[in-house]
């Protein structure tokens, strides 16, 4: 099996946040904690305005910044290559939060530990897709072997955008079919 990761089709995303809420529901996340987070951006000036959304979560990086900084080994690379977190070991030191350039790990105040997207490993092990993938009304999310996803969605998929850190930092297992406007540098993040 090759590297596993998420594919996001930005060209069709309506920004509805079904993925974000499905994730929240499946993981029973408290308010303020998001394992998957949809953000909205605009570029250009009226009336030449363009807009796009980015649905982001853990990129299960090939070179994850969060793993080596964890002093207790709670953040680790699982046998399938995804980055997993052992809640029992976590001491809540926030090292991973500081290290991740994507701001993925989340501090769960009520538990005193960090948690993050585990790519719904238990669901996947039982033959299901991650909750976010099966939630998308636009079918803009997929999870699987990156080589297969790349073959399916074309060579123009990217792993970085102006809104994201350079892919060279952590080698994210992430493929994006991006909107042309998402490649423009002068973006502004906006609430919806």
């Amino acid at each position, binding site marked *: 099996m090759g590297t596993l990761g998420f594919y996001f089709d930005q060209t069709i995303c309506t920004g509805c946040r079904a993925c974000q809420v499905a994730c929240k529901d499946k993981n029973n996340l408290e308010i303020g904690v998001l394992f998957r987070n949809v953000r909205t951006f605009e570029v250009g000036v009226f009336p030449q305005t*363009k807009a796009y959304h980015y649905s982001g979560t853990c990129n299960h990086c090939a070179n994850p910044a969060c793993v080596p900084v964890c002093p207790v080994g709670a953040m680790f690379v699982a046998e399938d290559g995804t980055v997993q977190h052992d809640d029992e070991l976590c001491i809540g030191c926030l090292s991973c939060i500081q290290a991740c350039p994507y701001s993925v790990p989340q501090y769960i105040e009520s538990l005193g530990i960090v948690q993050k997207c585990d790519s719904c490993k238990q669901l996947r092990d039982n033959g299901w897709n991650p909750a976010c993938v099966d939630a998308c009304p636009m079918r803009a999310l997929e999870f699987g072997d990156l080589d297969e996803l790349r073959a399916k969605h074309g060579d123009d998929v990217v792993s970085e955008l102006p809104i994201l850190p350079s892919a060279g930092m952590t080698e994210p297992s992430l493929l994006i079919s991006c909107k042309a406007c998402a490649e423009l540098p002068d973006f502004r993040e906006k609430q919806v």
Partner: protein
Amino acid sequence: MSDFLKQAAGKMVDRRDFLNAAAVGAVGLAFTSHMGNGLALADMVSAEQTEAEDTNSSVDIAVSDKGEWIPAACWFNCGSQCANYALVVDGEVVRQKTDDTHEDSPDYPQQRGCIRGRSQRKNVFGADRLKYPMKRKHWEPGGGDKSLRGRDEWVRISWDEAFDILSSEIKRVVEKYGNRSILSFGGPCNAINSYGGAVSHYGSTSYGSWQVTPFLMGYMPYSYPVFDRPGYIQWAASYTSRDTINDRLDLRNCETIIMISLNTAWNSAGTNNYHWAQAKKTGAKFIAVDPYYNDLAQAMDADWLPVRPGTDMALLLGVAYTLITEDDPENNPLIDWDFLDRCTLGFDADHMPEGVNPEENFKDYVLGTYDGIPKTPEWASEICGLEPERIRYLAQEMRVDKKVAIVCGWASARTQNSDNLPQMIATIGAMTGHMGKSGHMTGPSHSYFTANGGLSLVNPGSAGLPTISNPVDDAIHLGEVWNAILTHKYNFCGKSLYLPREERDIDIEMIYFYKYMNKLQTAEDMNSGIEAVRQVEFVVTQDYTLSTSAMFSDLVLPTTTEWETIGGFPRNSFPNREVVIAYRNVVPPLFEAKTDQEIDIELCKRLGVDVDSVYPFGPKQQFFNELKSCTVIQDNGVDYGPLITITEEDIESWGVEGTPQEGKISLEEFLKTGYYQVKRSPGDNYGYIAFEAFRNDPEAHPLPSSASGKIEIYSTGLAERINAAGWSEIKPLPTYVPPKNGYECTFENWETKEKGAYPYQIINPHYLRRAHSGFDNVLQLREAFPNPVYLNASDAREKGIEDGDTVLIENMNGKTLRRAVVTERLMPGIVSLPHGSWVDPDPETGIDRGGADNILTSALLQGQGVEAFNSNIVTFEKYAGEPLLPDVERPQRIAVVEGDDE
């Protein structure tokens, strides 16, 4: 157990230990206690705790194979119908999911739902659930101090006392003032209807002028009893979206899709948007006409044509001018002259109805032949704000020799003086020939029939209960209902509506707000509404949360959500065209909640109404009847037959009356998923081309919705009907009439362009956080969609406003606060405030801190009585008072009840 719960309530235990030990959350406890020992143990779990409780609990359970996935209702009238399931493990709902009942493909798509449906468990088990009947502390028979409504304290009472109060007040009001003094907002009011009836209401609600206009000027293909059957009109306008647009597979044949005030990405956020995406994938170009570069436009990468609210008529007249003056059948064919000639009435002097001055034809109005005002793109541009060359571009894109869909939402018709706008849209479609053929269509395409026109292929059934008619014939338009209460006068237009109007005296002394009829929140001019509600002698609401109507009531009756009923089909929704979705019971009633029917039955008893005549059989037989009478299209694509196979054994095991029948799916199989979808593929028998028969032979297939049987660009029938009933006179043909509270009204002096006191237009788009006012208390939805006010960036800059600043928006009707989003996606001069946010009046300042749209909307009716939510004017400034927190950090509206913690 009791000590343990107290500990849990006090958050004394580690969360994971608590959950591991309990194996159920607060939610599970809520109903087990209700079912069990009588003392509502869950009550000890504070509201705050209930919310926090749901977090990080049973992830392991949620992904295990334990429990049962139950088809769970999503019952709001958002404009979608999606599959929704709740995983119930040991009596607790641990997770939700949407459709995975079959493989997913564009032709045969799963019916995936949106964040609202996925948040139903937070809604059903919310900290804000009403637990007991309650009354206003200072209520007395006749009202007591009525000004305390909305500010008084709540006292827990027994159901017995609640029914005593309700029945005695009904009897007292009827005896003293008569049944014409009870105003009833929706619901199963069979008890009251059997007890002499009540005043009802109607209005254009979300439909705007699409509610009436297309049914009079011939832009609907079938015959509809709009003006004959009381109540039908409230549903009929949805059929404008069903019947004027081709089916979703044909949408893929379009080369160009022009969307006018259409954002189904917010209002119908389920799978129907996926159908637009298929058209995009097959190469369709999208153009979006809207004041806001909305998220459907964004996702379709549409070419944006920003146009001011309430000015679509001017825009389309400019388009019509371009079509007429630039059409060249040889070198630049824009107009379908053959279609205009055969299928329409009133386009030019040669096609006018008998007995009408031929100079009043549409073409000469556009050219300005007789009024001296050519409706050029330059003329239109000054009004609508779109550059003249972009108006010409839009006209060229609509050209007759391309396959074009001209699809709209109802939003642009929720404006003043928009009576002829649906007629204008039909006229543009007729001029360009985009109707009645594959790849060509014109009309509304949103809500339940988004991107997928045609009669439903599968239909839910009926419970088979008798219809209890309402003996009172008074029906008040929502746009003047508060005024009617305050002034004791209103305009009666016939119970079936739009008959010649008569002014009637009225003395409303009791208001009954049923569940889902939160009209104090959703009707225009809320401040007058609050004043009106504080004037009458008795106000009662039944709901499951403290809706705005409940907040201002004397008596509040806690009802169940649909998850707590025996099962059924969503009553507030239309069926999805290809799918019928049923729900089953998920949990027993929470706390002391009763179903609406249980409340109605008890009220019947108290009022001496024979229950058997109203409810001759119980909920189980009703549900069975609904299932049994579901119908589905047959293979020939024409006939319908029973959907569900029912056997003698089914009837016996249910303990109901009925006869066996043969359908397409067994009862057991259907109830397992609550789901049946007609499988579609290109070229099947289930396609739909709107107006096809009419286009092919208008003489043999005349349109029943106009007197002439044609599409009436000049419609005497439209003008006569509306002018007889109407609040202002309209013309028989599309003309531009500047709307009350429209763009022109933002100026003190139109000629010099000197701005007035309210220099901005405001719109109230349907917002994905809510279905109208539903769901607004759900925190994870507040987190996902924070409900700002959207301001144009240059407008905001002039006022020194930045993202996150608190903004005071005000006009002649009221003041409200919101946090700003400063955006280039909104036209200058426009303010966008999402629809349905719950009002939160500040007792100190009187300012609404909730961002309620209807604090600012005017109850001002014109023409057919359009509720003009999208033509209002305001001013705004950076708020100098205490800044607003984000909604997710603001307290939920939760009833504090005396006696709650006993």
